[in-house]
């Protein structure tokens, strides 16, 4: 639950669901860019981008978040920093940077089936339900073999 220590979060949309990650881990929002393909890489790794002298793996977070969606034509990459590595998450839309009061964060319910352990809490914002992510777990779940029944089958509930 360490992610809950952070009040300040970036919220973004993937598919129909809204997610939040700690703002201090966000490097930048990169629009456009064509990643170089990595043959034989796990499906969720879409390629590699070059950003400020670093090689950044571009990942599709949808699968580990239990969301199905078409990859957008014009990509928006939310570049986050985890330990010393950077990752570019392909998101559908950047929403906002918000302050989330800790006492309003609730235990994750089964709002997103197949989201695995990446969602560590939910917060009911006035207009939407925000899923708080632990970026570390999300990235790890991308390379971990997923249980069969969760594979790309996740039912999503954008608003419960």
């Amino acid at each position, binding site marked *: 639950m360490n992610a809950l220590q952070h009040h300040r979060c970036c919220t973004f949309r993937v598919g129909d669901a809204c997610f939040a990650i700690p703002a201090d881990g966000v490097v930048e929002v990169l629009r456009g860019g064509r*990643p*170089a*393909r*990595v*043959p*034989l*890489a*796990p499906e969720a*790794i879409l*390629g*590699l*981008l*070059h950003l*400020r*002298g*670093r*090689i950044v*793996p571009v*990942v599709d977070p949808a699968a580990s978040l239990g969301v199905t969606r078409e990859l957008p034509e014009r990509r928006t990459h939310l570049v986050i920093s985890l330990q010393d*590595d*950077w*990752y570019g998450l392909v998101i559908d839309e950047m929403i906002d940077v918000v302050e989330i009061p800790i006492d309003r964060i609730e235990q994750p319910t089964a709002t997103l089936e197949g989201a695995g352990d990446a969602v560590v809490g939910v917060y009911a914002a006035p207009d939407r339900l925000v899923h708080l992510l632990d970026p570390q777990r999300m*990235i790890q779940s*991308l*390379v971990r073999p997923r249980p069969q029944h969760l594979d790309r089958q996740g039912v999503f509930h954008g608003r419960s």
Partner: protein
Amino acid sequence: MSDNSEFISEFLVESGENLDQLDQDLLALEADPADPQRLASVFRTVHTIKGNSGFFGFSKLGALAHSGEHLLGKLRDGKATLDDRVAGTLYSMVDAVRTILQSIETTGGEGDHDYRELSRTLASAAEQAAAAQAQAAGTPAPAASGSAGVVVTPDPPAEAPPAPAELPPPAPPGAVPTAGPPAPSAPPATVAPPTPVVPPAPVAASETTVRVDVALLASILDLVGELVLARNQLRSIDSDEPAVQACAQRINAVTSALQETAVKTRLQPVEHVFSRFPRTVRDLAVSCGKEVQLVIDGADTELDRSLIESIRDPLTHLIRNSVDHGIEPPDVRVARGKPRAGRLSLRAFNESGRVTIEVSDDGGGIAFEKVREKAIARGLVSAADAESMPPDRVLQFIFEPGFSTAAQVTSVSGRGVGMDVVRTNIESIGGTVDLQSIPGAGTTVRVHVPLTLAIMPALVVRCGSERFAIPQSAVGELVPLARERGGPRIEGLAEAPVMRVRGRLVPIVFLDQFLGIREHTACRDDGTVVLVRVDDCEFGLVVDGMQSAAGHLRCRDLLDSASLSTIVVKPIGGLLAGLGLYSGATVLGDGGVVLILDLRGLLRIAKLPPAVREPEAARAAAAEIADRYLVCGTFGGRRIAVPLADVVRLEKYRLDEVQAVGDRRVIRRGDVFTTLEDADGLLGAATAPAAATMSVVVLNERCGGFGLAVGSIIDVLAAESRILPASAPGVAGILALGGIATEVIDLAAAGQPS
């Protein structure tokens, strides 16, 4: 003393910083006396000061540090607890060490003050603290002997400090580590503790160097890489404005220079590894009962800092081997007519873009017979095969896992985990190890490592819509596939494609198919085979072609092929590391990200047929070559043959490219001139008028290294008969080749200067 001044000033800088750290650690220890990491850190610091002072012959400092180390050893091993009295004693030791260092800095000597009283206080503090703890615990005080887990057992404090006279200081002939890279003893990569106020001791020495966080250097390199890309984009912009052109050119030059400089910040002299070896050798020599003289040469040779750490363990191992197994005990040496003290030489030098480090001893050498017997006993080779093996091949068994010929296992070496680990470690950083041994005269091990892993020459290949970089060090040759018959082509079943390369059968991997870029390979008949060698295994990677990439560095101009570029290797992170297929990525001049193929991983995943991994197979293939001949037609129309094993390459020249020098004719290829001999002339026939173009068969050095001018190249054929003697001049014999009797040219006679 003046010979060592550079080393001493470095020692002073390092020790000054270590003392500051020591103060901090002691303070922290007073708060938490049982913190094992702090204790270990303090112990190490004092141990280092002791080792260095012994090395430079500062006996007072050595004795003092030794007493301190003894006390700290007790604390570290839990035999004593740090109370106020002990802490006070340690602080006064730190102060005394600082005073001595200051004296060395200013006067070059240790000063006249007597520290024996302090040494005694330290010793008695150790005993009292130990006794106090034992009493408190209700157990008898432990004996003074060292505990089993401690590798270097401190001598009893009453003894004299380590005598530095046993080892001569390393003789650096002009080997002055420049003031450039900072000393690495404390790894600054992680969280650096806040540096306290200005270090009081060695101000003068520290003025020339600055310690910089490695992460900061890395980010500078990254930014320079970005700048290079921007520079490349700028280059592609057309502008007629002279001012813009001039500015662009200036930016261009500065960027290149900046990149070279930035790369240099990663390099450190190998001295940082070598400097610990005098001490290592001394300890080993003492524990093995041998006398060893260590000679260090080329300690200023520079190497990437990440590689410096990687060679430390392998080198230590090689040194252990030399002292324990190689160099004989003094009486044996005297009996063999050698000097009592064995000579262990450690040399580092630059060689063809790589760094070679040589560890050689004048000991007994490796006993071939023992290695042979052991290899047979372990079933690595059959007795019959072993008998016919040349000695250098037999020596290769040393690198087999678990191989040791040591008659008895000592604490130092002989447990059979050794040379294989050395080789694995060195190969993991892209290096190689080779070994020579002369019985009775000694053993030499050469370790070749790349200068840096951050930058390397690589071949950029195209495969479908993708591009990949292949480390040039692994690339043997490029063979373009030909659609027409007779050219190089790929044979074998779909499951196990192979290609014939001069008699060797080389397994083939279609890169597009292997990486799933295309369902069916498009380059079975065209494309290019990149022959690569990893460890003992050679294989071919079929790609669409080469990519001509704009290199980043000026040294690109030195590379002879446009496809070879110097690439900056960047890590690709943990997500893709698990694949084991890519060792990193790079950004090419056009801004494209290109993956670097990990050939070792590829080899493992491709599961190439094991038969070809045998070095024996390659050997057999080499033997096969001896029976193959290059058949040519002379200008005069005679059909002649040259042993294929003696042919280096084939070239075509126009007649006007041939230059006459005196009565010789030479051709020029790059900077190399090759003498031409006319085939007809060698056969004693009249030289026929040459055609407008000629083919030249360049022969190897064994045959004189000249070029044999012929009219046409016919084929490479296997001998179909035994060679028949011939009496014609210049003819070694006659062979049936392709069903036709062919004259084998007498190269041995032709190579003689006429």
